[in-house]
């Protein structure tokens, strides 16, 4: 599953660049170090994980860098071009760029390319290419012109294909685009005309390319907001001839069609592309990761301060300008599952797509494609529009309901919903329920005053919803801090992601007692143990918070001693619930939810230590309650089990031990947990000993029965 991690700014000092942003970000020969060339006079070497510059070089005043600095991987030297023709080569020890190696060339340079495993290449503005060594041997050599007069190089990329370097560059002339592929093993240059297809008027704004065995896959982001793919053969059938290649639609409407600038595209891996740009015409600019195979939005990150339309991807890091700062967002793509890929969907722009479903109908997905693409692409599109296909006129309640969701008042929707729920359940019942929820949420987004709380509660209680059926619902409830809906969701949904569970936990722990008082929470998991507490609880709790720590408890031995000396206080503490009944009910819902440790742990680290302490106190209290009876269970309907309690204690301590150990309030708790574990260990060892004794007893017992080796009994057969 592709994911963007927390972004960080590479430098606190804004780059001295204009609106154009930096010239380029290139890898250096050491991992994690990158050369950033700004559009002025400076080249900076950054260590990304440390977020600090390692070196900085500037050209003289009056000179200007025209081509981003690159690293020669074979020698470890850096190369930059200033004033179009002057080549400079230096290394880490050099301080002043004026004093380093200089070569003045005869023709203007477009780019220098350098990748691992081969010598750097120099691409001239007229389209000619030279290896660096050959060029330095005779800097003033004559450079031929390859492209025609008014053609301008727009974009270029350098690959290694089977150890042979291949360079591709795209030129533009009067709105027509041409691709040149230069192969260096055979010195063949092939030219292709890129045909745009039907969307003649669109302007291509950004290119990216990847390569596999036979083709260069060139992706372009067009001004209509769609991503197109063009396959260019590496080994052309007839290299001399000018060939034509057609582009095909890959992703539709990834950015707003009206965005004039600031859009960029880069290929991340086989199935993923990163797109920079505003997803909606009005919205802020975003960095989004798309899965091209499933045509889904994997994740996205808002860049509110705007960006420059430049995007670099090197070694799991995405670089872009955010505001005036160069920002790095680490990108990670784990092995993706279908469910993961289908999990999220962009918010559609069209108002009539509110009822679009977020799940796959495997039966009907075959025949329905998005737009007018070729058959191969239509197979990839697994989603469909619910309204068009499944909602037939002969299913009136659901149609009516979906229509009502779009426009009617809350009251009316409730009536429709009740009507719908009263009807016998159809096989697609749960899909319709999912549609309705998404419809309601969509409408809420459009008009924030519309808050169909009762409807949502009723819908959740149908027990057919799941997190993946209505991904927005819990986010909506989190946003609203509607703990009742959250509790219901936690109880009903089988597939809540750990991050959301943790967000719920955060809210449950942080929400004020007074706001909890007003909510209507299902208390059935919290039976009499909080009821007995509730009256005593308020003063008790304050007492704990105030008396939880006093300076003389500095060292553990003292505490332990104190605990031993004051058994009444300890027992008193153990009988009182550290949280209110309603909060306890909410926390119980968390305890019941399913999770996997590896995914939950990182999120648990984000919870404030004070809240962790309270939660731990509550869990410890539950444990004490459990141990009061022989069966080790809590009273009430559906209470948390001992295993759940113990697992959560372990999880919380695992995630936050270093923090909790520093908090004075938690000291007593940790001590008692420590003592508890210690006693458990001794109990286990004692049990092992007892087991041996019992076996002896059993043996004795057997001997006793053995003594009755012979008896005469009366038996009556019936």
């Amino acid at each position, binding site marked *: 599953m592709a994911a963007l991690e927390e972004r960080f700014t590479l430098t606190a000092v804004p780059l001295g660049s204009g609106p154009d942003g930096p010239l380029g970000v290139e890898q250096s020969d050491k991992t994690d170090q990158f050369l950033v060339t700004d559009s002025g006079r400076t080249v900076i070497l950054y260590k990304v994980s440390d977020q600090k510059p390692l070196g900085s070089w500037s050209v003289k005043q009056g000179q200007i860098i025209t081509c981003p600095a690159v690293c020669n991987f074979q020698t470890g030297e850096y190369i930059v071009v200033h004033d179009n023709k002057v080549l400079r080569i230096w290394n880490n020890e050099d301080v002043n760029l004026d004093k380093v190696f200089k070569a003045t060339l005869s023709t203007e340079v477009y780019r220098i390319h350098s990748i691992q495993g081969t010598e750097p290449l120099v691409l001239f503005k007229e389209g000619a290419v030279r290896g660096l060594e050959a060029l330095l041997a005779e800097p003033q050599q004559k450079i031929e012109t390859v492209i025609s007069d008014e053609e301008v190089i727009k974009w270029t990329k350098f690959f290694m294909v089977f150890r042979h370097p291949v360079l591709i560059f795209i030129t533009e002339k009067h709105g027509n685009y041409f691709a040149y592929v230069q192969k260096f093993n055979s010195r063949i240059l092939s030219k292709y005309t890129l045909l745009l297809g039907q969307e003649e008027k669109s302007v291509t704004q950004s290119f990216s390319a990847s390569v596999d065995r036979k083709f260069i896959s060139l992706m372009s982001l067009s001004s209509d907001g769609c991503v197109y793919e063009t396959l260019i053969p590496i080994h052309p059938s007839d290299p001399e001839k000018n060939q034509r290649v057609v582009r095909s639609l890959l992703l539709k409407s990834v950015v707003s069609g009206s965005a004039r600038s600031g859009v960029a595209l880069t290929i991340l891996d086989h199935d993923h592309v990163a797109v920079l740009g505003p997803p909606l015409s009005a919205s802020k600019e975003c960095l989004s990761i798309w899965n091209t195979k499933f045509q889904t939005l994997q994740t996205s990150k808002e860049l509110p301060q705007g960006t420059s339309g430049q995007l670099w991807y090197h070694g799991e890091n995405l670089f872009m300008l955010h505001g005036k700062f160069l920002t790095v967002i680490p990108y990670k793509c784990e092995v993706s599952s279908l469910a993961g890929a289908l999990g999220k969907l962009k918010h559609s722009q069209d108002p009539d797509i509110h009822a679009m479903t977020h799940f796959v109908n495997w039966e009907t997905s075959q025949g329905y494609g998005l737009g007018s693409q070729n058959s191969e692409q239509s197979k990839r599109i697994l989603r469909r529009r619910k309204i068009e296909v499944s909602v037939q006129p002969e299913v009136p309640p659901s149609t009516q309901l979906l229509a009502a969701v779009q426009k009617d008042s809350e009251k009316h929707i409730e009536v429709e919903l009740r009507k719908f729920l009263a009807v016998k359940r159809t096989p697609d019942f749960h899909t319709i329920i999912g549609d309705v929820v998404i419809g309601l949420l969509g409408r809420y987004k459009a008009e924030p005053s519309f808050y169909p709380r009762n409807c949502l509660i009723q819908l959740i209680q149908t027990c057919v919803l799941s997190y993946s059926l209505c991904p927005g619902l819990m986010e909506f409830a989190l946003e609203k801090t509607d703990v009742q809906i959250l509790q219901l969701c936690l109880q009903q949904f089988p597939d809540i992601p750990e991050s959301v569970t943790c967000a719920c936990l955060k809210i449950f722990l942080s929400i004020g007692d007074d706001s909890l008082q007003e909510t209507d929470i299902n208390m059935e998991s919290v039976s009499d143990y909080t009821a007995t507490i509730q009256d005593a609880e308020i003063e008790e709790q304050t007492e704990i918070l105030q008396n939880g720590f006093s300076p003389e408890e500095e060292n553990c031995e003292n505490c332990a001693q104190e605990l031993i000396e004051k058994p009444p206080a300890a027992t008193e503490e153990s009988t009182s619930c550290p949280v209110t009944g309603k909060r306890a009910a909410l926390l119980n819902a968390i305890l019941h939810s399913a999770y996997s440790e590896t995914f939950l742990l990182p999120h648990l680290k984000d919870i404030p230590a004070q809240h962790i302490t309270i939660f731990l106190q509550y869990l410890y209290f539950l444990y004490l309650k459990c141990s009061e009876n022989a069966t080790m269970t809590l009273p009430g309907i559906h209470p948390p089990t001992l295993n759940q309690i113990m697992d959560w204690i372990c999880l919380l301590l695992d995630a936050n031990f270093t923090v909790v150990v520093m908090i004075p309030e938690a000291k007593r708790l940790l001590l008692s947990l420590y003592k508890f574990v210690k006693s458990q260990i001794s109990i286990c060892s004692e049990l092992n000993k007892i087991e041996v004794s019992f076996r002896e007893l059993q043996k004795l017992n057997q001997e006793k029965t053995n003594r009755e080796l012979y008896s005469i009994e009366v038996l009556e057969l*019936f």
Partner: protein
Amino acid sequence: MGEFKVHRVRFFNYVPSGIRCVAYNNQSNRLAVSRTDGTVEIYNLSANYFQEKFFPGHESRATEALCWANGQRLFSAGLNGEIIEYDLQALNIKYAMDAFGGPIWSMAASPNGSQLLVGCEDGSVKLFQITPDKIQFERNFDRQKSRILSLSWHPAGTHIAAGSIDYISVFDVKSGSAIHKMLVDRQYMGVSKRKCIIWGVAFLSDGTVISVDSAGKVQFWDSATGTLVKNHLIANADVQSIAISDQEDSFVVGTAEGTVFHFQLVSVTSSSSEKQWVRTKPFQHHTHDVRAVAHSPIALISGGTDTHLVIRPLMEKVEVKNYDAALRKITFPHRRLVSCAKKKQLLLFQFAHHLELWRLGSTVATGKNGDTLPLSKNADHLLHLKTKGPENIICSCISPCGSWIAYSTASRFFLYRLNYEHDNINLQRVSKMPAFLRSALQILFSEDSTKLFVASNQGSVHVIRLLEGSFKHLHTFQPQSGTVESMCLLAVSPDGNWLAASGTSAGVHVYNVKQLKLHCTVPAYNFPVTALAIAPNTNNLVIAHSDQQVFEYSIPDKQYTQWSRTIQKQGFHHLWLQRDTPITHISFHPKRPMHILLHDAYMFCIIDKSLPLPNDKTLLYNPLPPTNESDIIRRRTAHAFKISKKYKPLLFMDLLDERTLVAVERPLDDIIAQLPPPIKKKKFGT
């Protein structure tokens, strides 16, 4: 049905010996099992897992390997260095041949059944050619450094794998030279100090060798390159046995912790053709070491030190719900080890190497159902008779009057005369047994103790007249020409006129003892006979078969009785047919000719032929005693099968007189208490 005084006897201190080897024969669907005392048993898996044959053990003959070869020939090899072939018809040892390699640890028959391979203490692997009536030494393979503990043939017969200590060798059969030596990691729980013993190997047709060893590992080796491919650590103790299915898609291993693991070759994903070995099911049916496992097409079979033979069906391979679908645990032999002198109230217990004679106690008190009565006299241990020589006892019998005891080993027949003088017993061996009385499969005295019937292993039955202190050979009923099948079961009519004898598969022969000739033969039935008895007065022969069918055959009329025809027509109750232990003894009520008493290991039953038969809707077992008078009457007349499951496991039950029963129980706990302690596993803590 009435009230009985039951002598509940638990002092029969019988402990079965542990299972050492099992070998499954796919052709005949039979299982050979060898025990640590050298006994070899043959179970017929098609006949409801009935133990149809056995070969008595021998003190010096510890069997270490057992295999079927060349169709249905059974070989064993052991620590005395001999290879033994068994005669499955005559039920004796055909021949024993010294392999001259010291103790033999392993043996394997070639896939085509024509060659036999043994692995010896001195590190040699010896190849024998199987000739029609013997085996012949062919050659030695390259000698290894230490003993060969396991052997396996490649299904094509071109290579073999031999497990030794710390390494596995792969031999080329043609040249006899070792082409690979695969060293096994000695590490045991992270410490490498002990030797790693390869307890078992299996060679697959794709060249993979699977080994199990004392460090708890199951390892997969590539025999072509001699490299380790995969390693499963499955136990903290030894993995002692492995058996692979014929299709090579599943195998089973047994560990010293009593666990049996099933491995299956399953597809990596549902659609792909790539398959890998996955540990699928663990079974814990044993408390002690699982020394031997076998893999039949539909079941996993395991046996070990805890003496149980466990047959665990693979539910995915079982198509219909029948005998094969149930888990079987066979603990007790399917033959009688107890005989009883009714008049003197004596019990004779048969052990491997001795006999015990006990006199039952008595009481004067009376009581109601369920009471335990106070004893006025306890049971007495009268006699402990040790055998001479290393051979195990095959069979034994005490005469109804209690003054004769006879037993037989594989080579000698013993007859003793007992004289009771107050509390003293005088035991006198009858010497000069005739030469033909060398070994017996079954011994029986006539009701009046004047005649002795001996079933010998050539299919003949000898009739001997007993006189005070001597005997006279009266007649020998010879087997019908052309048959060599041994008679295993005998029954004599109380009036002494009729003798019934049965082998394992052919029908029951009825002889006229007065006229000394064959009277008739009961038609053969598909399933072997498990018990025989002739009723008093009517001379009806009652025959129980391993499929739980019971027939009644009138000897004078030479036909099945009306009752037998009725019950065959109606069929037995389904619960009756689902019982999984065979009926091992049948007897009759002296005063009530309509009653038949029979028992298996878990129940005894009195059939009242005068009552209507139960159908599948009626309750076969009465779980609780009735509470009121009308209930009693209603139940008493309910149906013909009066069953009690009060005494179990039941090794013997008989009617001493019309109001007294004797039941010999052997609780499993008592057996377990006499076994060595199992590997201790911690129950608490981590």
